[in-house]
């Protein structure tokens, strides 16, 4: 494992993008960052710019209006980049399957690495997803 991979595994920075979520997953993502759950102990930090981020956390069904912006944010992230789909509706449009303005899943728009299921997933589930992603990173690096 090189120095760059080591640094990446120890401090994956995340960016959060709401693509039309009900806010349920968003508040659970933020709750995962606050003292009770505290993902900062894994070196994870929420950053504001896609250019600083390693992991894109997407919440909510992808609406047709936001699709272009989502692709642009994804393209702005430096390689290697990872995508985490949080919530049922992000993975498969879930409760919004009958709505005319949403895509049937995030993987129709951008590639996805980890799916976290739940409507909304509990912060513990989100932490589990992040740890799985870190394991994937570790496996790819060694």
């Amino acid at each position: 494992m090189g120095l760059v991979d080591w640094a990446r595994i120890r401090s994956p920075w995340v960016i959060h993008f709401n693509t039309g979520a009900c806010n349920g997953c968003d508040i659970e993502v933020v709750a995962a960052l606050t003292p009770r759950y505290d993902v900062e102990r894994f070196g994870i930090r929420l950053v504001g710019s896609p250019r600083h981020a390693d992991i894109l956390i997407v919440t909510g069904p992808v609406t047709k209006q936001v699709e272009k912006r989502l692709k642009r944010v994804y393209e702005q992230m430096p390689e290697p980049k990872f995508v985490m789909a949080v919530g049922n509706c992000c993975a498969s449009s879930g409760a919004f399957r009958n709505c005319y303005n949403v895509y049937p899943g995030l993987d129709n728009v951008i590639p996805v690495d980890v799916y976290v299921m739940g409507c909304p997933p509990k912060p513990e589930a989100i932490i589990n997803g992040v740890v799985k992603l870190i394991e994937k990173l570790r496996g790819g690096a060694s």
Partner: protein
Amino acid sequence: MSVVDIPIGPQHPAIKEPLNITCYVDGEHVVGAKLRIGYNHRGIEKAGEYQTYIQNLYIAERICGICGIVHAFCLTQATEDIIGKEIPKRADYIRTIGLELNRIHSHLLWLGVAAHEIGFDTLFMYVWRDREMVMDVIEDFTGNRVTYALMTIGGVRRDIPQEKAERILKVMDLLDEKVRKYKKMCLDERTIRMRCDGVGILRKEDAIALCAVGPTARASGVPFDVRADDPHAAYDEIPFRVVTYDTCDVTARLLVRIDETLESISIVREAIKRMPSGPVRIRVPRVVPTGEGVGRTEAPRGEVIHYVRANGTERPFRWKVRAPTLANLLSIPVMLTSRGDYVVNIADVPITFASIDPCLSCTDRAIRFIDVSSGKSWVWTFSQIKRMYWRD
């Protein structure tokens, strides 16, 4: 110096939700703002016409994840309005407790986000730590942290047994103490006062003219609260105070929300004390008779109205949601425009915007297409939408 326009969003660290604000800036001063919404439009109302009333409660709760119970409550209220059946008294009290616990969690969440927007992350972390207490109570009582699935047509799904009521009261005592501490902090802490005093002014006449609702209106001295003006659930039997402040700035909105949290705590205590015994649910027919119904309540952000038209089947013919943020968004350009002595700095934009507690997932309901380059706007008919977007 010429006016420069700065686009903020739809993905921006200061805004958690997709929305685009264009600020017109002259030097350091904001001289105007324009909003563009619609990134969050999913088409829930249309989907509602293809599902039964009970299935719609599931999707209504997911209109907004923060105040989902309010939407579920309004939809049940509108449906019960058409059916014309009274629900048991105990169910009314449990609904009130659910709504007020939701308000406590939402206002604490907002207080944390507001502290984050002014760069006071310590307060953000403290508030969110204490917010977990009310989340635990909600999980204990409804089985879930965010979407409660508590409301159903004809009552509530879950009763509150004695031991759970005692646990709720215990946490309310703890929270009462913590919230009072935060109120003192917001009044005394210089960092907060310097960032919030005199920022984001919305005068009383503007608030009335722009139809502001909820804490935004009450912070401008408009005593408008649906719980007091049109009592529903058990609000007519529980005394509470409609909190108003008249400094019209962000500090007033901060204090209105903190005082309302204290009021909510006392409502929960009172509701548990006065709760009558009896059933919590009555059976209602699956087929709703022809008619129209309206449900309204005071969400943490303001007034929510649901309108349902039934055509004698088990699916609604039309379901319309009117969320509070849509009303409050109109006051944002007014707050963000410098005029005379009132100066808006670029640094004040995030906290001014956050001060209305925006919830765009509630807001993006109506759809009107605008071609930005030509300025032409039009509304599509249902058959046009179907042709463009329908998938079987």
